């Protein structure tokens, strides 16, 4: 495979093939191009992810219930009133619980802000040699463990929240994920946030924590579980 073939295939957006991987691993220029392209893909995903109008899902389902299937007998008014009160209580409790569960944590939000504002600059600052990365990350999470969950595209030090963190850009199941490995920054429990199409999780580990940012919340939850289970 030539560099031209590799770059043409990148532009199709199809998953990386074994041939492409082999070429990238032996061509530093295409490796750098792939990192830059991964950031372009992330911005593309965010650009396409226009905000969904508030209450959209509810309006959809309301419309279905009004115009959709054949009518069913309505319950009597007394029972209906009871059902309305019960449903309101359940919905209120559910929304309250959901809001509590989904509240944005400031540290997780900082991770998202980093990806939105600082990530490109951090990559431009340059990557660190592998041997140095192995040593730097060892106290929080061994590099080999990160490599087990996906393909590392970039790794380098970066200032974050008053400490030196380690910025890892990786591809996991075709998704671009950013990790911020934060030695010495201890958190008591898993943190979460979501903003503008990005989600963040912060996972407490032995001697620090790891922030993870990506557009797929479910994947982040799985990775958080994997990192936690591997650290214990």
């Amino acid at each position, binding site marked *: 495979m030539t560099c031209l073939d590799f770059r043409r295939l990148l*532009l*199709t*957006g199809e998953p990386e093939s074994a041939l492409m991987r082999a070429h990238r691993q032996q061509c530093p220029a295409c490796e750098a191009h792939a990192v830059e392209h991964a950031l372009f893909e992330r911005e593309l995903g965010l650009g*396409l992810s226009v905000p969904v109008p508030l209450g959209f899902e509810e309006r*959809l389902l309301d419309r*279905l219930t*009004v115009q*959709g*299937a054949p009518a069913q007998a309505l319950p009597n008014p007394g029972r209906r009133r009871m059902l309305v009160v019960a449903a309101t209580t359940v919905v209120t409790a559910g929304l309250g619980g959901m809001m509590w569960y989904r509240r944005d944590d400031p540290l997780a939000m900082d991770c998202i802000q980093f990806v939105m504002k600082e990530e490109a600059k951090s990559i431009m600052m340059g990557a660190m040699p592998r041997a140095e990365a192995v040593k730097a990350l060892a106290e929080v999470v061994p590099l080999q463990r990160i490599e087990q969950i996906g393909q590392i595209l970039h790794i380098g030090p970066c200032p974050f929240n008053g400490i030196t963190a380690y910025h890892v850009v990786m591809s996991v199941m075709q998704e671009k994920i950013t990790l911020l490995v934060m030695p010495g920054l201890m958190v008591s429990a898993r943190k979460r946030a979501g903003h*503008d199409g990005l989600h963040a999780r912060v996972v407490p580990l032995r001697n620090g924590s790891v922030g993870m940012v990506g557009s797929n919340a479910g994947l982040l939850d799985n990775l958080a579980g994997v990192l936690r289970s591997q650290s214990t």
Partner: protein
Amino acid sequence: MKEVDPNFESVARAHAGDLFRFAFWLTRDRQQAEDVVQEALLRGWRSYRGLREPGAAKAWLFSIVRNEFYRTISANARHAGHVDVADLEIADERPPAFGLEIRDALKTLPQTYAEPLALQVLGGFSCAEIAEMLETTEGAVMTRLTRARQTLKRLVSAPGARWSGGGLP
């Protein structure tokens, strides 16, 4: 009130956001996108029981949204003169905090490029699946996707551009 089939409801809920976004990039208008998805789901619900493979529900819903969009466009064209899909302009009044550059570029992308790109990025469909949905060949889809990305990269490239990629080694 009528009950929504719980299976259909969960499928609709799971994909509502991406269906809206896909419809938005077809219509380039938030209100029209919402209308298209509502109509599409209404049609979808009525024929949901006929769906043989529940695993194919996502692709099926995206196809219904696409069909509904083209049905609406063709109805509008009949009533209000010809509407060129490629000329539709974005009416997204809420600029995002991030991705603004690329979103601006996306607004200028011809429909023939935007459609497969939205299906790939938002829907996660492969070139082969998109080819089936657009009733074209896989090669044609790959060409459109390549051109879409090349166009976007060129549009967001300023001097010292981030995504220009530089020359080959």
